């Protein structure tokens, strides 16, 4: 079932009904830019073109309260928008009763705003991630975290001034 749902997301621009009708025939694989989507990859949220849609499709909400527990570090100025280092850390005991289960990273005006989704377990010890992302232009980066109890909290948006846009790659 999960596989079916995922496949239904494959063809943006094709109605869900039409996609459902051909799902399983193998036709969907041909001609799609993301032909070989990995099972379970949340295509709908990643394909969303505007922030509200990307947040709705991933988190289920577009308005999340800012909490000082969610830390997002990024440079104030990035000369190369193709590789902007970001560090995410969410304050949590990370015990089996109380841990951060999911973290989403967004770039507000990238062609597809959802950049990454992280699913943590208590064994991580810390809800911590460091990676490098592409930014099309000067923009806000933001993080939303969800606890195992479903509580949502966001970082304050952080503006990164981009000298050379990085969506070429």
């Amino acid at each position, binding site marked *: 079932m999960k596989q079916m749902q995922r496949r239904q997301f494959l063809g943006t621009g094709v109605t869900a009904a039409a996609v459902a009708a051909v799902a399983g025939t193998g036709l969907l694989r041909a001609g799609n830019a*993301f032909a070989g989507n990995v099972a379970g990859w949340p295509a709908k949220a990643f394909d969303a073109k505007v922030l509200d849609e990307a947040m709705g499709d991933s988190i289920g909400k577009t308005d999340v309260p800012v909490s000082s527990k969610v830390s997002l570090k990024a440079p104030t100025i990035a000369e190369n928008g193709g590789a902007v280092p970001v560090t995410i850390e969410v304050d949590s005991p990370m015990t089996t009763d109380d841990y951060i289960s999911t973290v989403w990273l967004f770039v507000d005006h990238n062609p597809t705003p959802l950049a990454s989704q992280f699913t943590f377990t208590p064994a991580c010890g810390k809800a911590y991630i460091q990676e490098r992302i592409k930014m099309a232009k000067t923009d806000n980066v933001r993080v939303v975290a969800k606890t195992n109890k479903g509580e949502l909290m966001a970082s304050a948006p952080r503006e990164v001034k981009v000298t050379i846009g990085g969506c070429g790659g």
Partner: protein
Amino acid sequence: MAEALGNPMIRMPGSAKKGEIVEIRSLIMNPMTTGLQKDKKTGKLIPAHFIQTVTITFNDKPLLDIDWSTAVSSNPYLAFKMRAEESGTLKMVWKDNTNGSWSADSKITVS
């Protein structure tokens, strides 16, 4: 744009005290193309080619699952943490949208 693919690497301390939180750093070669950029010579769109999932386990138990978009930089670097509770093997599996799959592992002794 023939680029190296795969060649995953993991850097993790070889030993730790029980309960200590260790940092793990990783790197893999992948173009992470968006599918939105044109080839300057041919004028054709360069197809999207990017890592979509990273699955990280410790002693075969789930530790961290990651879903990536084309907004992650080429040759993706990733650092994360783990609470060292027992000796064992950390395994990472990267999968891209062209059926590419790579794995790497690293051992840690916990005392």
